[in-house]
């Protein structure tokens, strides 16, 4: 057992923890980060070997349940139409994310005031703007200034290539008079901060062997470690301990050898994502907090938000780019982002154009859909689709609902015997109508771009990438878990900094906002050091 009391212990080493640790480390406080995974070795990423596609269904799969790495914990998502996707390593889920890096819109912080749904955030777009800018430099964001869907913003690197896919769809959007723009992407399109430029490997979702994608193991963490932050890997935290005075005392964790350890700390920071964070808080029960730590509001675990996804694909006559280029990052459209009262839903969605998949991905997708049968017709059907298929996902805003939540499974545990999370989630009628609208508009733009046939799937069952809302921020301790700068209402030296604190989800990938919030909270801590626990 460690006798040392550190200034700050951070649980989790993903997107939020990396930004927070880097920023706070300039204070020279003693900061320790505990991560249940390990540092990744880019040489072992799938794109370095001939079985690169297959490994995306195996040890680099999206679901921790299917992946089954020892550092993973199981998630009971059997009753949810959307399964959880995550990754446990230094870098967290940024190891597997596409690198899509849009910001929230100003309206996303004011959904109650503007549209009468969700809740207003206790901060606004302007509060985060400078942190978005700082984050763009640290993560290496590629894009193009001038997007009319956003207030003016800085984009430090040139955009990812449009390629045949982007140009073809761009023409389709133009024919309909709809918005589109090169995606903001955390992908170094030119050499940036020691990172080699993107060479269009394709499978970003199984790790970037080139190191061009901005996963935090190659962005913030090396800089944070240089500032003195200690990252302890293969350390799985079981619970946060708390004293009679309602102050967090530290964390109990299992080290790489499975030995129980207690790390004492003046400040405890939780950054385990929208599922892992409520799991840890709910597992941290004590006399003063019998329903879980920081849970006097009863809100921990509730208001779980995903982004329900629709996928719409088109088959084209002409050859495209195959699987070349950043798979998920190309162009996006926010034509249907803001509320339009003429539609039968509120809020909106983004279209994100996806590039093609490889030979195996094409075959398996065709097998699953029945479009590529086995037998004499196989080669004809395959040749019509391989390198001729592209499409998009619609990423729909999910509104907070109390009944969508994370609880503890009564039986399922991880490798250390710690109760696993259970997901309770159902799609709202608003989401269903939005998905239906997105599928229809997706087909329309694909046809305008020249697709000879289209197909769609909604919701995407494996797309629980974005985990938000389960320890949300707010000014009312009865209805939120942390205050407007990330500190627990109930435990004055406990902070939550990940997607759990989102009040609403917006309709864009959350990583950029998660990190901007983490930088904002770190700045608040630095400015309030003299009276941080008041």
């Amino acid at each position: 057992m460690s006798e040392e009391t550190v200034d700050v212990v951070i649980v989790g080493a993903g997107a939020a923890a990396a930004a927070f640790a880097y920023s706070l480390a300039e204070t020279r406080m003693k900061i320790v980060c505990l991560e249940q995974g390990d540092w990744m070795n880019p040489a072992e990423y799938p794109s370095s070997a001939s079985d690169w596609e297959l490994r995306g269904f195996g040890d680099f799969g999206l679901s921790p349940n299917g992946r089954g790495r020892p550092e993973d914990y199981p998630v009971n998502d059997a009753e949810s139409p959307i399964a959880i996707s995550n990754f446990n390593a230094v870098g967290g889920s940024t190891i597997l994310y596409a690198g899509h890096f849009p910001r929230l819109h100003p309206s996303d912080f004011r959904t109650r005031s503007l549209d009468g749904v969700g809740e207003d955030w206790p901060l606004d777009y302007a509060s985060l703007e400078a942190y978005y800018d700082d984050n763009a430099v640290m993560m290496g964001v590629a894009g193009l200034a001038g997007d009319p869907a956003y207030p003016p913003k800085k984009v430090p690197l040139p955009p990812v290539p449009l390629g045949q896919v982007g140009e073809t769809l761009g023409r389709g959007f133009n024919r309909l008079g709809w918005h589109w723009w090169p995606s903001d992407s955390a992908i170094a399109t030119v050499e940036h901060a020691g990172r080699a430029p993107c060479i269009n490997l394709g499978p970003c979702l199984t790790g970037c062997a080139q190191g061009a994608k901005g996963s935090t193991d190659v962005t913030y963490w090396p800089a944070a470690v240089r500032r003195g932050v200690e990252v302890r890997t293969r350390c799985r935290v079981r619970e946060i301990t708390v004293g009679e005075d309602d102050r967090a005392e530290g964390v109990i964790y299992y080290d790489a050898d499975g030995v129980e350890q207690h790390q004492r700390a003046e400040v405890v920071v939780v950054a385990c994502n929208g599922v892992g964070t409520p799991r840890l808080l709910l597992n941290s029960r004590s006399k003063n907090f019998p329903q879980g730590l920081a849970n006097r509001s009863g809100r921990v675990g509730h208001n779980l938000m995903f982004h329900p996804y629709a996928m719409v694909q088109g088959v084209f006559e002409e050859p495209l780019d195959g699987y070349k280029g950043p798979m998920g990052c190309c162009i996006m459209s926010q034509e249907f982002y803001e509320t339009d009262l003429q539609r039968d839903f509120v809020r909106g969605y983004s279209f994100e154009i996806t590039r093609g998949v490889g030979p195996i991905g094409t075959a398996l997708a065709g097998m699953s859909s029945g479009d590529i049968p086995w037998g004499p017709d196989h080669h004809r059907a395959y040749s019509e689709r391989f390198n001729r298929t592209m499409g998009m996902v619609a990423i729909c805003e999910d509104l907070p609902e109390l009944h969508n939540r994370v609880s503890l499974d009564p039986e399922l545990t991880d490798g250390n015997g710690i109760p696993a999370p259970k997901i309770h989630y159902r799609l709202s009628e608003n989401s269903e109508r939005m998905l239906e609208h997105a599928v229809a508009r997706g087909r329309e733009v694909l046809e305008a771009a020249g697709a000879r046939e289209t197909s769609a799937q909604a919701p995407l069952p494996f797309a629980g990438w974005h985990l938000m809302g389960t320890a949300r921020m707010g000014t009312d301790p009865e209805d939120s878990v942390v205050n407007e700068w990330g500190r627990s209402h109930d435990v004055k030296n406990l902070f939550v900094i990940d997607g759990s604190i989102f009040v609403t989800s917006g309709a864009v990938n959350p990583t950029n906002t998660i990190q901007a919030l983490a930088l904002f909270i770190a700045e608040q801590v630095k400015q309030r050091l003299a009276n941080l626990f008041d």
Partner: protein
Amino acid sequence: MASSLPNELSSERLQLLAGVLDAIIPPGEGDDLPGAGELGLGEALQRKAPELVPLVAEGLGALEREMANRQVADFGGLAESDKRSLLEDLGSEQPGFLPALLFQVYTTYYQHPRVLAALGLEARPPYPLGYELEGGDLGLLDPVRKRPPLYRRT
């Protein structure tokens, strides 16, 4: 019974399996695409997915029995429609056989250098060489640039 199932397939079973694989992905017509049966995928399956060998052996055993019932001596000599009928009819007795085999065949076939070459692809992993990709014509954005702001001011 699982305990009596083989860990590897006999040469006769491998030959029958090759015929089944060719029925699933036959040789291409007018191109260089090989049939799945001629690529040694049966042997590869034994090496890479040994846990599937008992299932495949059971499926092939059921196929042999059904061929005997229908007085078929040579699976490869059947018409394509008869091959499909035979394999699909196995579904009631061996429901896992064909789906498992399809996954293995599709994933192994489309990784094979001969197949990749026939598709016009380089038989190499993406890294370290990567690929060239056209930057594209950003002038296509001109009509979008002319639009007023789309975001709502708050």
